[in-house]
């Protein structure tokens, strides 16, 4: 059992939770995720560890309510408990000084981007950060990313904040005028694919953090398998970060929708109860 120390709504349907998990707090590095089950009957779901406080023994997660499990999680009151939390999982991000790096976060993908951007900044990289969202109210963590970014650019679908359009529109402009050594993109699959296509002809090293379905997160079930450079790779133990130019995004998108109808039934059943 893991105590929920604090919870805060940071955007519509997006929560920031602080959990008591001293073991994880001591070990976590940028890029790590955890797997949790809100209650004794819940599914296991993966969420990125956004930050940790080893002294207080706590870790933070940020999640969007999209289905039954994230809804059950959001319903836990402050001071309540989360049944199971396991981690830190996955390989931490490989951090080095590349020079100039573009950090792209789309939607709730900004949450996993934050610790990575902080680590790249600490390593001396010059960071050009691009955040994207449906509209102003869905933009998260801008205040946390600003101090680690040399410039912070924003794109919204409706133009309510920053440039009207997509993160790739901003990226295109940057690519024209800057010498860029690394691009890191985290967000919806379509966004990551679009970024990969844009940097491929320019041969700019581009990393993405994949978010396939997962169960155990330890390499046991194989549901998280992705096609990377034509090979089957398990995102939970070999990833979740991969070279964007080698990833088969269409396969990932298809597999993410695998249980949509079934998940829907459970979500609707939950509403009745």
């Amino acid at each position, binding site marked *: 059992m893991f105590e929920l120390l604090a919870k805060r709504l940071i955007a519509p349907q997006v929560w920031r939770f602080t959990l008591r998990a001293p*073991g*994880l707090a001591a*070990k976590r590095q940028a890029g790590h995720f955890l797997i949790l*089950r809100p209650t004794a*009957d*819940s*599914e*296991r779901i993966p969420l990125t560890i956004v930050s940790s406080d080893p002294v207080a023994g706590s870790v933070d997660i940020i999640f969007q309510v999209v289905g*039954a*499990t994230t809804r059950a999680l959001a319903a836990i009151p402050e001071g309540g408990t989360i*049944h*199971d*939390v*396991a*981690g*830190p*999982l996955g390989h931490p991000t490989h951090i080095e000084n590349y020079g100039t790096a573009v950090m792209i976060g789309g939607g709730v993908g900004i949450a996993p981007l934050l610790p990575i951007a902080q680590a790249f900044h600490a390593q001396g990289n010059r960071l050009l950060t691009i955040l994207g969202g449906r509209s102003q109210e869905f933009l998260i963590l801008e205040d946390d990313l600003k101090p680690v970014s040399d410039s912070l650019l924003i794109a919204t679908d409706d133009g309510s904040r920053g440039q009207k359009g997509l993160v790739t529109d901003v990226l295109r402009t940057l690519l024209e005028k800057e010498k860029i050594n690394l691009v890191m993109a985290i967000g919806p699959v379509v966004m990551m694919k679009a970024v990969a296509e844009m940097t491929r002809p320019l041969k700019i090293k581009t990393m993405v953090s994949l978010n396939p379905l997962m*169960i*155990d*997160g*330890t*390499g*046991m*079930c*194989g*549901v998280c*398998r*992705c*096609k990377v450079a034509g*090979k*089957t790779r*398990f995102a939970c*133990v070999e990833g979740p970060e991969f070279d964007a130019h080698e990833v*088969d995004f269409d*396969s990932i998108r*298809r*597999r993410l*929708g*695998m*249980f949509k109808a*079934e*998940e829907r*039934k*459970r979500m609707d*059943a939950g509403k009745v109860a």
Partner: protein
Amino acid sequence: MSPLNLNREKMPSQEPLVRARNFEEVNLGLSPEQARREAERCLLCKKPTCVTGCPVHINIPHFIQAILENHEDEAVRRIRTDNSLPAICGRVCPQETQCEEACVLNKKGAPVAIGALERYVGDYAIRACVLPDMSRVVSQNKKIAVVGSGPSGLTCAGELVKLGYQVTVFEALHELGGVLAYGIPEFRLPKEMIVRCEIDTLRHMGVEFITNAVIGKLNTVPELLAAGFAAVYVATGAGYPSFMNIPGEDLNYVYSANEFLTRVNLMQAFKGEASATPLVVGKRVAVIGGGNTALDAARSALRLGAEKVFLVYRRSEAEMPGRLEEIHHAQEEGIDFQLLTLPLEYLGKEDGSVRAMRCVRMELGEPDASGRRKPVPIADSEFEFQIDSAVVAIGTQANPIIAQTTPGLQTNPRGYIVANESGETSLPRVYAGGDIVSGAATVILAMGAGRHAAQKIHAALSGEI
């Protein structure tokens, strides 16, 4: 001398067509009268060959004698000196190739039903709450860490607490038992009644269990040693699923057996929509493989409502590695065995889900390295059939997490930890056993390894070597 009784008691079981649609246990267990009659058939041999057939050398006639004398409590006590999980072994051990094959009565075609009797005693212990007497155990004041709560880790932990050590078992998942919990289905091995109860007995004996603890990530093996554990036993299993790397394997509803069975067992998808974790099975299912895992997946698919389940295996029935009883049960339940058949490709629909599979028929050629005749494709025998889902059960590999995070721990080229018969690895104070050393094997071999390691750890820590 009374004449040999060759009427082996028949294990009562659910009717095939009824059980094929429910997750209740297939075998119902011997009644006390049956157990007594079966025990009477045993010749209580002076030099019991059955014992040599059992990988952990359970003193079989010794416990059978207690059944004969109506001393079930004593039978429990006797069995437990050699085996801490009798209700589990009695259900899943491949007896026909071990103790029962070696029984003298096997020559006459009717070996004593040792597995059924072992289960009988194990079930009695659970029902009557017969707990081991720990009052005379002398504390050693030393802590041991066990990594993984499968049969190997559980056995090692049980042996060590009996010797007076403080044992902590670290398990990555939220549930204890390893394959016993996530792999072997309810209808063969009930979780609540059997697996949890045998684990609770260990807890009662003083074993401490910590779930959600992925060793190598949360704490590494060297960190456990530095934190005051005198020794670490690594029993992390071989649960890393293999794929065939054929086209279409990433289509939706093509599962690894571990994913399929984990959804069914650990995440309780066998309860249908009452489970939070979904599983799509469809009407026609193909399961690829011929071992226990493939049989379990095929029979689970049937119970989840599939109309037709094909078992696609590239060799013939004689080479199937699955337990004989399970093969027979699967046939009785109506699984369609497509033997000497090799999958070549999965074909998908627009929406990315699987729609069919293309296979080729095989014939047996020359013996290969394993001594089995090697299947070779028959020219122009390719064919296609329609499916809604597929389960790939062609085996597993070593999980890399411990090896990657334990510097100096020697592994073989396939990633398995190198350890000797006593579980000693290339590192002092680090022991390993079970599937992570042997590759995918059996419950009882994993248990045997746990026991040997416990004895070695005790010998090493008490200064005998």
